């Protein structure tokens, strides 16, 4: 391993740090791992930690902290709180290199199977940009014109007919879910608003429309089908402390990152999908106290957690799984929430990307 330092720090965690590189984001980059810095640079390693190089300068005009990165084919999008930078052929030895910038900040960026970059832009709405390199690159920003939502996190769920179902955490507005139209200019969506819950994150539970959502107070909401489920399961565990930041799922487990720690809810997604969640649920929870900022799952094998020391904890999920049967901590949880489902039509406004 060159340049990166890996040493054992809390249980299950290895620390990854780079000299002169304050990590703000870590996640997948094709088959490798990407680290974004607080000044907008990128660094790449293999999953094993071998450095593959990176960018000497910020990829964004703003030089703000990287808070998201997505790839579709030879296109990449890097987001910060001030802009989104789109790049074509930047990291491959082919074609002409090109980039463009949207000078509006987002809370992250994702790529969809139909080939669109999607970014939650707060009260402005949901950004949609086709990843294909075109002479004229249109940006569509969608929101409900009558009562706009605050788009904070978005995921794309794949469907069998190759459509994109977009699901967004819209904070006190709840969850907005709908299929992206054929021309990608509108979203016929429905809103699921759990009473009194500030929804901060969502994640898919499998290759279907099963979805989990996370409230700022740690409440979990589980949907068998996010487009039609009117009676999701709501769970809250007293051992999950702090302000909830992130929600992830891999290998049938659900992961929650809060201001106080990282929690593995062992086999919760698996049990829920198999219909084994009942009124009283004794859950095995692995708790790791830490002061973290963000996290992402890598290929169902690792979770990369950005901590407040500007380094990253890498957790090998197979190591955690080996210990799950030995965990004594079992906790029962169940809350009852009222949900309201409404239909919305999100209309888009067109913007233009600025070539850089």
């Amino acid at each position, binding site marked *: 391993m060159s340049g990166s330092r890996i040493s054992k720090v809390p249980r299950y965690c290895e620390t990854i740090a780079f000299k002169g590189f304050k990590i703000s984001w870590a996640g997948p980059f094709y088959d490798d791992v990407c680290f974004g810095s*607080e000044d907008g640079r990128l660094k790449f390693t293999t999953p094993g930690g071998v450095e593959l190089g990176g960018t000497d300068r910020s990829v964004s005009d703003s030089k703000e902290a990287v808070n998201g990165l997505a790839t579709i084919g030879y296109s990449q999008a890097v987001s910060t709180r001030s802009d989104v930078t789109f790049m074509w052929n930047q990291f491959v030895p082919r074609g002409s290199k090109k980039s463009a910038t949207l000078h509006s900040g987002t809370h992250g960026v994702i790529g969809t199977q139909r080939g669109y970059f999607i970014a939650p832009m*707060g009260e402005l709405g949901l950004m949609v940009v086709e990843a294909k390199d075109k002479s004229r690159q249109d940006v569509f920003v969608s929101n409900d014109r009558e009562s706009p939502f*605050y788009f904070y996190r978005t995921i794309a769920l794949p469907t069998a007919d190759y459509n994109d179902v977009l699901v967004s955490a819209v904070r006190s507005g709840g969850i907005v879910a709908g299929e992206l139209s054929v021309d990608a200019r509108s979203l016929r969506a429905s809103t699921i608003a759990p009473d009194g819950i500030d929804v901060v994150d969502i994640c898919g539970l499998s290759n279907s429309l099963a979805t989990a959502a996370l409230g700022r107070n740690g409440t979990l909401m589980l949907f068998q089908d996010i487009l039609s489920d009117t009676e999701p399961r709501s769970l809250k565990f007293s051992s999950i402390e702090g302000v909830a930041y992130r929600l992830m799922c891999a290998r049938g487990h659900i992961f929650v990152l809060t201001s106080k720690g990282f929690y593995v809810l062992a086999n919760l997604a698996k049990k829920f999908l198999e219909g084994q969640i009942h009124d009283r649920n004794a859950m095995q929870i692995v708790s790791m106290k830490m002061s973290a*900022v963000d996290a992402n799952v890598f290929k169902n094998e690792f979770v990369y957690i950005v901590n407040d020391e*500007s380094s990253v904890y890498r957790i090998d999920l197979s190591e955690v799984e080996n210990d799950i049967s030995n965990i004594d901590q079992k906790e029962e949880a169940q809350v009852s929430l009222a949900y309201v489902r409404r239909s919305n039509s999100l209309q888009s406004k067109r913007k233009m990307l600025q070539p850089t």
Partner: protein
Amino acid sequence: MTDAEEFSVFDQADFLDISNSKGDLFGILRDEDGELRIIGCWLEQLAKFPFTRKGTPWHGYPCWLLSREAPKNRKKGAPTKKIFQKLKDKGVITEQQRKRFANGGDA
């Protein structure tokens, strides 16, 4: 937010001089558990008091973390990351909260 709470946000920002180059002040409010409170209807956690001349009352409002469309290298509305660093250096927020703000997330 009560008037007293609003004054406390301003007083702390003023006392610790959490200001940018224009003289605008920035502050936060904590809840009983010590967590940062949400103070705006768009879930903002940071308050901004734009600079006013001596003798003129200050007015504050919740401040977005995301910048909006603006000419190159000019951020519209959102505080610079120097403000987050200042808040941390003066002990108003933790390093974890500074990094969350710098990423555009709430803390």
